[in-house]
């Protein structure tokens, strides 16, 4: 108990230094946590993907279009239960800074393909009935203060011209990583019809098909059958299960993700240096006291335990303050990102909390190593003769 008391009192012995050290560590934990949120966001789609959805895009590039005529041929492939399709519908609201994710979807199959969408039956029917209607996620509605019946004036980027869409539904998502709640969905047919006058060469083309497999069908067989159907055609296809398709997108951002992972490592290194510096100062100041303790009969392991305990206490203090800041910061971060292109979930998972705590424990241990080694090697006489 005496040693525990000594450890606690040593920890709080220099309140200003302790506050600054914990503050520094908390900032690192905060930045680390936000980076993890970003990485989690990237990977969340992979984890949340449905097993029975297959994505078919142009074999050469996702940005190339496929003929609408593929729809019928897809529908008769064994194992395919439902065929859905859509396009990116790039828009700006008021100015370029107020853009968001928008998509033109075949509404007849949309809700069946994406059961993640939570929408009242009345709103669903209203949307299906109104060709100028659109469906928006609740986060997008909250962002611009839109409500049911509002007419949203938009400027098309992928589909040139001015658009006026009526909000017919505001949805929540069972799985925001797949069906983002900060996005807008409108009728594919309406977007396609406008192209007949503005860009006739792009009419009757789709960006992707989503084939839902029948229960019991082997997705691998269906994937192979789809791509075989369109092999050697002028627009060959690349079909993947939804999980693999999203994972492909994540992999394409590999360099960026690698950089973020490295950045996380660098941050932990900074945290360790902050703590090493503070601990080294503290141990240097108390060298004589450690010499006295050795004179009283304490062994190196006792002194190492004191330093390690102090290091862990400070590191965990930094972790807890950092995590306490992470919760409000994550909300602000989500809003800031929403101001850009998309609204993510940015939820702090137990894994992120565990990782932050685990990393700081590791930092605490690593930071204590050097002072602990010094103390272990110090003779009693060196300790007693030290003048700090």
């Amino acid at each position, binding site marked *: *108990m*005496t*040693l525990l*008391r*000594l450890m606690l*009192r*040593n920890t709080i*012995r220099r309140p200003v230094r302790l506050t600054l050290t914990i503050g520094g560590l908390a900032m690192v934990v905060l930045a680390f946590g936000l980076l993890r949120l970003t990485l989690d966001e990237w990977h969340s789609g992979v984890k949340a993907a449905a097993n029975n959805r297959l994505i078919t895009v142009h074999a050469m590039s996702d940005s190339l279009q496929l003929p609408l005529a593929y729809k019928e041929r897809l529908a008769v492939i064994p194992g395919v239960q439902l065929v859905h399709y859509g396009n990116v519908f790039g828009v700006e609201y008021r100015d370029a800074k107020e853009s968001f994710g928008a998509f033109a979807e075949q509404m007849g199959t949309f809700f069946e393909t994406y059961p993640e969408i939570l929408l009242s039956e009345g709103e669903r029917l209203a949307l299906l009935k109104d060709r100028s209607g659109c469906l928006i996620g609740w986060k997008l509605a909250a962002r611009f203060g839109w409500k049911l019946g509002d007419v949203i004036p938009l400027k098309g980027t992928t589909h040139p011209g001015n658009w006026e869409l009526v909000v017919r539904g505001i949805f929540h998502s069972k799985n925001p990583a797949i069906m983002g709640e900060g996005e807008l969905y409108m009728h594919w047919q309406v977007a396609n019809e406008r192209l007949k006058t503005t860009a006739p060469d792009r009419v009757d083309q789709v960006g992707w098909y989503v084939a839902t497999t029948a229960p019991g069908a082997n997705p691998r067989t269906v994937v192979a059958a789809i791509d075989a159907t369109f092999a050697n055609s002028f627009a060959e296809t690349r079909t993947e299960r939804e999980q693999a398709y999203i994972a492909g997108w994540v992999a394409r951002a590999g360099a960026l993700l690698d950089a973020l992972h490295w950045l996380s490592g660098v941050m932990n290194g900074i945290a360790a240096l902050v703590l090493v510096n503070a601990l080294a100062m503290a141990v240097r100041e108390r060298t*004589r*006291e450690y010499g*006295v*303790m*050795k*004179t*009283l*009969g*304490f*062994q*190196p392991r*006792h002194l190492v335990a004191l330093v390690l305990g102090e290091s862990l206490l400070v590191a965990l203090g930094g972790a807890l303050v950092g995590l306490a800041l992470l919760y409000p910061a994550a909300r602000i971060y989500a809003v800031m990102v929403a101001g850009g292109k998309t609204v993510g979930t940015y939820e702090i998972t137990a894994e992120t909390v565990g990782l932050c705590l685990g990393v700081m424990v590791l930092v605490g241990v690593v930071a204590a190593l050097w002072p602990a080694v010094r103390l272990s090697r110090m*003779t*009693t*006489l060196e300790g*007693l003769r030290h003048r700090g």
Partner: protein
Amino acid sequence: MSQPAMIDPVVSLHNVTKTYSRGGTEVSVLKDLSFVIPAGTFLAIMGPSGSGKSTLLNVMAGIDRPTSGSVVVAGTRLDGLSEGDMARWRARHIGYVFQTYNLIPVLTAAENVELPLALTHLSRRERADHVKTALRLVGLADRMDHYPRQLSGGQEQRVGVARAIVSDPTMILADEPTGNLDRESADDILTLLARLNRELGKTIVMVTHDPRAAERAQMIRHLEKGLLEMPP
């Protein structure tokens, strides 16, 4: 000081030398010392600065190692012990009183005194009893919860003495225990040490350069240039 009739020597030094290397020059601090200290002795070792007094004390405490010779204290030959074994041995047999008190500033008087007991298997209650007894013995029972900064120099040194005796060691080694104190406080400490020797039979070796302090001991020996003056 070697007396053939003595029994139970607590300290036995045989041909002990200690040499330091300073700037490439070998400096002999202790030169072929051989003597014994019987149990229950209060010995004062006097000598000018640099005479090797503190080195001799540190050798007896196992804090410093002799360059050659053997040191047997409380029945244990020290020169063969590892640092860890030496620390364990010191915890059992040595109570050390420093010139500069060396209390831990973040611990109260009672907690400072309790510190050596952290190395024992005593229960919390037993430790508390030992601490109270030690502090009562040094006349500081009413200052248990005071921090060192709240005590005078003399009181701090009394806490230092309480810390040295709390684990009931075989021997107390005091390095200039009154060196930083005023006359009155110094007298208090010396009276306390004399009482510990007289009433509890503690073997005490005190290093000092103050003749008035040395007079309180049963025996005085002078250390000059590494050589211990023998009684005439």
